């Protein structure tokens, strides 16, 4: 599939999980394909970075479900920051561990999973739909039997980026961290994988084979497709370009120039422009 063919399967109002973490191994080619589409009213779930930022800036993301939005080497995602301050995006703010637990619950088809994170914090106040449960068992740890009932974060679709995949949908990460990409895929009705390269057969340590074809519905080959986020060992974060992105995001006129230069054409045009 091409990124545009993947995005043609998505619908307005969907809840879409995006893999990676901050500005690390994000399926940016798929995000850029969403930017070229008329999709709207999306809810974006994930450890947010420029994926969420771009979809907020384009007005296509109505809500972000996350514990942060960061570019890692630049602490705050600039579009997300502005949208929060302008009141143009809704936020479901969760502890990082709660987000993990919500994905795990959805992957396991459980209505919720209990977790201690969130108790006593403002997270329960800004998300009044969250409930707590009491353990039906005696607490063997002497810590407390009241826990947050983290609801399953069910996804209509998941978008993740791998270093390698085969055409059947087996996916491999070669960097230091799988993040939660397997959970995003299992939590979703349909999971779409972009990758640096589709190979006839996957080589390397078996532990790096994170996704199997039962978890994945389609694969798109998108070389440099995580740019400008990192995709080690294929490439690191493009810090110079990320800094350019962040500077442009700080000013509406600058952002319009950035968008026209990089985001109006197709993926091939983007890759040509960032090589330039």
């Amino acid at each position, binding site marked *: 599939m091409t990124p545009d063919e993947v995005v043609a399967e998505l619908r307005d109002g969907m809840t879409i999980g995006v893999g990676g973490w901050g500005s690390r191994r994000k399926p940016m080619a798929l995000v850029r394909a969403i930017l070229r589409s008329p999709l709207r009213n999306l809810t974006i779930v994930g450890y947010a970075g420029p994926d969420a930022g771009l979809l907020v800036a384009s007005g296509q993301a109505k809500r972000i479900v996350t514990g942060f939005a960061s570019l890692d080497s630049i602490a705050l995602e600039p579009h997300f920051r502005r949208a929060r301050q302008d009141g143009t995006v809704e936020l479901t703010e969760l502890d990082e561990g709660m987000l993990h637990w919500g994905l795990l619950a959805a992957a396991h088809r459980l209505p919720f999973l209990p977790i201690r994170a969130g108790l*006593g914090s403002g997270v329960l106040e800004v998300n009044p739909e969250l409930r707590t449960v009491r353990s039906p068992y005696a607490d063997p740890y002497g810590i407390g039997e009241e826990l947050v009932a983290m609801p399953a974060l069910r996804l209509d679709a998941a978008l993740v980026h791998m270093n390698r995949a085969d055409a059947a949908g087996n996916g491999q990460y070669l960097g230091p961290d799988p993040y939660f990409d397997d959970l995003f895929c299992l939590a979703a009705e349909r999971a779409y994988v972009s990758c640096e390269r589709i190979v006839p057969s996957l080589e390397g340590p078996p532990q790096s084979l994170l996704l199997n074809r039962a978890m994945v519905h389609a694969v798109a080959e998108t070389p440099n497709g995580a740019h400008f986020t990192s995709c080690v060992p294929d490439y690191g974060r493009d810090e110079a370009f990320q800094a350019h992105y962040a500077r442009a995001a700080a000013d509406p006129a600058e952002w319009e120039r950035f968008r026209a230069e990089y985001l109006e054409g197709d993926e091939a045009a983007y890759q040509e422009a960032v090589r330039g």
Partner: protein
Amino acid sequence: MTDEPTRAEVCVVACAEAWRGDGAILASPMGLIPTLAARLARLTFAPDLLLTDGEAYLLDQDDQVEGWLPYAKVFTMLAAGRRHVMMGAAQIDRYGNQNISCIGDWKRPKAQLLGVRGAPGNTVNHPVSYWIPRHSPRVFVSAVDMICGVGYDRGDPGPHELRVVVTNLAVLDFGTPERVMRLRSVHPGVEVSDVVAATGFPLVIPDEVPVTRLPTAEELELIRTRLDPGGARERELP
């Protein structure tokens, strides 16, 4: 090494002291001075501490890989209580409630900051300390705008220990019967009145306030020649 220690060097050692006696647990420092501090602690009085490279590897004292700790495993370690994090705080109150999410009304903040990140889970699962490079009434407030790290007035929801709050002026803790913040020591050259003036709520002040200990000659040597030869630590303070 005959130079007098700088304030930043006193702060590195004061932060390092937070991890004294922790044994073999994951030390997670946020920010430069806490990072130098955790590495200093491991090189001296806390050799068993585990430290990551900021990505997914555990590195030993010689920067050799000794383990693998992707985010999923960090979450498990923290839920298991085998971790002590030193976080920052945009706001902190007298009970230790901490805010790194946003300033102003959460629904439409004046300033969006980092988000809650892992602070809610950290504070109800394992020891937490704070490093605040600019001690001021803007940070030390009567009530925080969004409770990220959980303080001592929130119903004791978990294994809850706020160990110390280290600032550019002082070391503070919660060693009071009501578990409210008290002044533990002032850094050399700082008056108790300076700390009181920079704090936007009443602090518990003991009759005798000691001076934060100075770095030893060995600690200064490690900070200056091994851990931070470029002196970046000096730029983290006002």
